[in-house]
């Protein structure tokens, strides 16, 4: 699977995250969060795992976190990638 075009998923409402993916030559994550930096590593881990499960090795991933739990992050990243692949 690959990121062929820009796509978005999610919202900036509390407990959600907004994900935007665009094509790119390498895999780069841009995380913006409103919670403590203590969660930054965990969020990045979840995003990278989700991308790996989907076979994504390149692209620009922008994520604005509003306190989303792991399952929400996974769901939003997956949906954004699927939309970008279609």
């Amino acid at each position, binding site marked *: 699977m690959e990121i062929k075009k820009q796509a978005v998923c999610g919202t900036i409402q509390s407990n959600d995250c907004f994900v935007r993916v665009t094509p790119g030559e390498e895999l780069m994550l841009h995380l913006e969060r409103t919670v403590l930096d203590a969660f930054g590593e965990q969020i990045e881990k979840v995003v990278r795992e989700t991308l790996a499960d989907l076979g994504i090795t390149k692209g620009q991933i922008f994520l604005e976190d509003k306190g989303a739990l792991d*399952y929400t992050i996974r769901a939003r990243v997956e*949906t954004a990638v699927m939309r970008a692949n279609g």
Partner: protein
Amino acid sequence: MLTSADVLGADTLVFDLEDAVSLQEKDAARTLVREALSFLSFTDSEVTVRINPVDSPYWKEDLSVIVPAKPQGIVIPKATASSVRLVEEEVMKLEKRHGIENPLFFILIVESAFGLFDLKSTLEASSRIEGLILGGEDFTSDMGVKRTAGSHELLFARYQIATAAKAYGLDAIDTPYTDIENMEGLKEDTHFSKSIGFTGRLAINPRQVEPIHEVFSPTALEIEEAHAILLEAEEAEKKGLGVFSYKGKMVDLPVIKRAEKTMASARKWGLVR
């Protein structure tokens, strides 16, 4: 709301992929619900998912994503005999493919004139059906009548649903009370639901859960009386009596059965052990 759903006190949660989700977000909603089912623990509530109707392009994909996540049940909107059979066929394929041993149950939403008229066929379409819901808003829309505060336009449908559910041993779940600011109106209308045989009601706001529970659970007095009648019935049986008197009133088999149902309801609501 997904994350906090289990603490809201509802007996059954319905995660909605249908009317609550815009057409552009159907894919996002089913993925989010799938992930929630896999990640969250639901200890106090049953979990069901309302799929899109079978005349939409979404229902098969809804099932293919959701069934493997193992909700306990599926809520089928605009239920008719043919839609129930179609959904069951698809669910069975998915259960087999994914090795799901506990079959998912169905709750049907009846929300059209034809759906109400053909209830018997619909209820006989599957042995998985455990509950029947009246979809009041869509029903009145289908009938071309106005929805009113007094809900008289739903009277026939409500009686029909409650009676059919009883006939087939199902839960009868009344349509939501849509004025979420009016708690007194909700209680009054829910008392009516209970009086005609409904066993529960849909809540569309967490604040509605407790008032609905209050109406449907037996009172302390009802529980005390039921318990006393059952004790007396036990004694009567030992003496070989089929009928006896309790507080000056005749107690026969129907009264005993009603007392047993009251105690079962009290146990179900956690009011007695």
